[in-house]
């Protein structure tokens, strides 16, 4: 985690702007959804929908789209800046290592880090990191907004969601163990490829092609065994998490339905919750994947040393 902290610290202005933009974009979207709930109430009451109200909704659509664009763009630039810091930090550390510590560089391990851990962390920062943090942020904000609307209905949604979180927390721990084991196997397999490339002239002279194939096959078998386990666990956890994520929606419809019937809330409020709960359950439903991905990312980062000075 310390590397991640350094990356955030060195790009703190970008990170701060991203957080502010994310907040603004999410709030705009939630207010728009609130007005959609109002529209539903008008439809249910068979009331006239005024032109001014339609213009207001249209204005919020425009505002939502604009803030979404800014949030996406700036957020991804921030992730790119962090990836750049990581790449430069690693190169800088390697260059200064022998002079500073006087220790020999383990070339195979360093090259493997450059090819695997660094490449994967870079890809994760560039492609996934922003989406994950953005979704989690949206989930948290949606929950806060729902609390402001109706505490009881939020609790109906929140309590089963918290149970899912416990399940997800438990399952992701088991998942991360096997993900880590599979990562190690993949690293060994990739290193086998690297040494074959590096020792290619010797392989040709001594006709070691079959030996290299055999060695690679053994490592492939070992990695696929671990990776199959990861795939199966992920399938099971995602499915269970998918089912469990459906339960809060159904409970929301059940409890919300009773509350509408008893006149405690309006249909518009229920529709608002239905629209917002998606942000929450979508975030939770994909949590096992995201946690596994984040674990891989932090495991990769822990293998990368970067220059502490910057």
């Amino acid at each position, binding site marked *: 985690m310390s590397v991640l902290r350094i990356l955030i610290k060195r790009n703190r202005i970008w990170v701060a702007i991203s957080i502010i933009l994310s907040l603004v974009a999410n709030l705009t979207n939630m207010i728009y959804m609130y007005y*959609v709930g109002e*529209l*539903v109430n008008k*439809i249910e009451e*068979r009331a006239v*929908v005024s032109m001014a109200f*339609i213009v207001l909704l249209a204005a919020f*659509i425009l505002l939502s*789209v*604009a803030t*979404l*664009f800014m949030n996406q763009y700036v957020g*991804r*630039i921030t992730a790119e*800046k962090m*990836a750049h810091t990581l*790449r*430069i930090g690693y190169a*800088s550390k*390697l*260059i*200064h290592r*022998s002079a500073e510590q006087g220790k020999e*560089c383990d*070339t195979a391990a360093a*090259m493997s880090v*450059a*090819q695997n851990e660094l*490449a994967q962390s*870079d890809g994760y920062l*560039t492609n996934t990191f922003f989406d994950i943090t953005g979704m989690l942020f949206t989930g948290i904000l949606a929950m806060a907004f729902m609390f402001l609307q109706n505490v009881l209905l939020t609790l109906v949604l929140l309590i089963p969601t918290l149970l899912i979180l416990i399940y997800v927390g438990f399952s992701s721990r088991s998942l991360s163990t096997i993900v880590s084991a599979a990562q190690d196997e993949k690293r060994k397999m990739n290193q086998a*490829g690297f040494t074959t*490339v590096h020792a*290619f*002239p010797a*392989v*040709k002279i001594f006709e070691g092609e079959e030996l*290299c*194939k055999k060695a690679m096959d053994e490592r*492939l*078998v070992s990695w*696929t065994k671990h*990776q*199959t386990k990861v*795939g*199966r666990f992920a*399938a*099971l956890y*995602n*499915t269970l998490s*998918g*089912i469990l994520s*459906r339960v809060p929606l*159904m409970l929301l*419809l*059940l409890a*919300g*339905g009773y509350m509408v019937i008893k006149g405690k809330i309006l249909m518009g409020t*229920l529709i608002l919750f239905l629209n917002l709960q998606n942000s929450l359950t979508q975030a939770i439903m994909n949590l096992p*994947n995201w946690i596994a991905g984040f674990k891989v990312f932090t495991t990769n980062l822990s293998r990368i040393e970067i220059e502490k000075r910057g």
Partner: protein
Amino acid sequence: MNHRVIRILKELGLWKTFVIVMILRSPFDFLNSVLNANMLESFIRLTDQRDGDNLSRTFWIFLLFTLLLFAYNASIWATVAVKTDMMLHRRLRMKLLESMLSRTQQEMEEYSEGDWITRLNSDVDKVADYLTAPINFMHSMIAVVNFVLSSVILIMLNPTLFGVSLFLMIPFFILSSIVIVKNIPKFRKNAQESFARYTNWMEPIIEAGDAITVFDGQDIVLDKVREESEKIMRENVKAHRRTAWSLAVSAASGMTGYLLLLLIGNSMIGTMIKDFAALIKITQYRGRMMMGVMCVNSGINNMKSNLTGVVRVDEILKAETTDPG
């Protein structure tokens, strides 16, 4: 599917297996859409009719269907799909290694060590990602099935609202997923090439670090590395700007469409639409259509970016087939 990917799958003897997995997985999203739309319709209708007695019975019925549907998906995913994915990795990595080993030293030196390692490792991952990673080809196909079948149901439910939905979806889709994202693969390719050059710079840093230190060359080397890293960032940011535009256009389409459906549907309640619950069902199918389009849109972007790896892998495999030795 890209012709290169088809060629790779055929060469690995996995084409038929992949098609079977795809067929088995394709109905999931659509069946989930049907379940979701009917569930919302039932609950909202019962609520509107003040029928509290049947609410809990409906709850248990839909819970049972949910369990059955997810159990089906899990069994396909955990057995056939995972196995196919692993077979793809194993066969492709071996095939590439064999291709590499069948070359002469001279042919081998056509690419740098870093380039070979990238092809053997991360490019193979890109081929597998193209086919089976989330929001790539497999998800896109599942989304297409969902889109087509949800459209059919929406036409049957209300052709006018289907027309409105389509009118707001297709132009936006063309704009966001074809026009705006057109240059993303080019930017990604540039970024990847810069990353390969960055990795090539790492080689002397790692293997000749002492020499660089002795000759006081740290700053020059670091400047070169920084230059490549900045190129990666610049090209990726160009791609991200396009992605952000694409998402903004999709969001505009989604929000406008939903609002119009509610407003137009409101005027049809009691005539062409039975009640508010039926309108919600229509918005659900429209939402699923939209989700399908967005999934295909993102899938196309991801597939395009993974295609760079596919091209590089295919280049090696093709070279092997043309090599007389």
